[in-house]
């Protein structure tokens, strides 16, 4: 009960805080609309907006899954070889530090207007946090567990699956949660360039027509999407790491 109720209360408080801010700070509604204006827009256009939300969600999910599939093995390589790590880190940081808005057009020129560039952008944003956290998690295996694995003559693969990964899972999930919260942004940024669907497209459209209520409606959906995805990851964590109780 509380697990569902408190987050909902949190959402309610967020909305209340926003409304209060709009009133108290006398923010003009061309800058930040009031919740009723946004709710109105949501109510009026929900069918269209939901469709665009789904477009963004599906891009996000695919990119995120790809980031896990590529990032975790990459982290295993990094954790396994100090030389590889030291050589590859600068490249990783470079890729991560490029402003994604600036490289989005390049991706579209390469890959076209389809879901490709969006998925790649989500991947680009999610990869680093996943790799960083997973590497750190894999490396933090306690000495006695490493020795145990060695003494049991566990091969590389077995050591990874049976000893290092389960131990690293709590940290891997920190990376996944950081990543999923960025993932949606990745899709949206890619949609800013070369898209005719998705919440990012809606935001650009509304931005250029000063329809702040529409822009905020899209951002509300974006946030909800992020929250849902975040809690989905958290649920996966609860199921996969039940032994790591918190203190």
């Amino acid at each position: 009960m509380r697990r569902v109720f408190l987050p909902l209360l949190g959402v309610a408080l967020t909305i209340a805080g926003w409304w209060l801010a709009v009133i108290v700070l006398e923010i003009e509604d061309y800058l930040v609309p009031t919740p009723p204006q946004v709710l109105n827009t949501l109510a009026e256009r929900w069918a269209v907006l939901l469709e665009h939300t789904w477009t963004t969600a599906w891009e996000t999910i695919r990119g995120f899954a790809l980031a896990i599939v590529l990032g975790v093995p990459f982290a295993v390589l990094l954790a396994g070889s100090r030389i590889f790590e030291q050589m590859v880190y600068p490249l990783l940081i470079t890729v991560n530090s490029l402003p994604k808005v600036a490289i989005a057009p390049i991706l579209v020129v390469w890959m076209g207007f389809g879901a490709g560039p969006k998925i790649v952008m989500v991947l680009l944003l999610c990869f680093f946090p996943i790799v960083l956290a997973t590497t750190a998690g894999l490396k933090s295996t306690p000495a006695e567990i490493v020795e145990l694995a060695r003494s049991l003559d566990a091969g590389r693969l077995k050591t990874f699956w049976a000893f290092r990964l389960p131990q690293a899972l709590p940290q891997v999930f920190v990376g996944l949660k950081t990543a999923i919260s960025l993932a949606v942004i990745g899709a949206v940024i890619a949609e800013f360039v070369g898209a005719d669907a998705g919440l990012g497209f809606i935001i650009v459209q509304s931005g250029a027509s000063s329809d702040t209520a529409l822009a905020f409606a899209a951002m509300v959906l974006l946030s909800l999407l992020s929250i849902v995805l975040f809690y989905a990851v958290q649920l996966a964590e609860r199921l996969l790491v039940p032994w790591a109780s918190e203190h």
Partner: protein
Amino acid sequence: ESSPDLAKVTYLTSFNTFGRDAYAYVAAEKGFFEEAGFDVEIKPGTGSGDVMKLIAGGQADYGVADFSAVAVALANQDLPLTSVGMIHQQSLAALVTLEGTGISEPADLAGKTIADQAGSTVTVLFPAYAKAAGFDGSGVKFVPSAPPSLPQLLASGKVDAVGQFVVGKGLIEAAAKDREAVFLPYSDVLPDLYGNTLLTTTETAESNPEQVQKFSAALLKGLQYSIENPDETGEILAAAQPTQDAAVAAGEVKLMAPYVTGEDGAAIGAIDEARVQGVIDELTKGGAITKDVTPADLVSFDLTPPAEP
């Protein structure tokens, strides 16, 4: 639904799917493209720079971009692009302020602060604009800002004026609430400045000139139809793009109409070599162009519609 003998092409709008770019949807809806033998996929563009890259990179076959930006890009870089038809005979670029700020004519801008997209036509050609308008532009401070924030910066009084297209009147007034927007179009003092132009790759222009001309003619037919029927245009756009408002779009089209035809009554789409040279000269003076370019480097004059109607 699409007939197999139609040529599939991709077309990019200049920026998103507003009234100012609605004519492409009109050409599609009214069947002009199909009549000309095309099955056109219309994609929202994201500004001149991206449109040029996407066409050059082969992701789109045709697209629309600001002619000054095209001139700068083609002069400075090896982009395999060429103009094949002019959308706006006069540039839509303008400076906008609000009533009550004490600016009603160009000279009032002296010493003021203006926000504009970095490197936009408005910024680049401001010295030329000031000179032509006869005031001292050297004291004006330009603050580079993101396009979406321009109306808000103006409304909140952070700046005295912003760069904007003349069709953005509704946009500014939506932000400024009851205050009226005062537009100072560049075309008032720089009538030779072109607005958006239709682009394709030099390769397409050379290898398939008939196709280019057919496409250009179909698009321009849509343009013509749209400025003649702005309200219907708004509805066509809203039908194609549910997030757009028909009335707002119609308003934009009405504002844009005089810039499409131009003052001298040139045919829709026509490009004049002398005027192009004039644009190049101004951009060179302003420092935006540093290399030698000729009008022929920018425009395929043999493919453009004839100047006289």
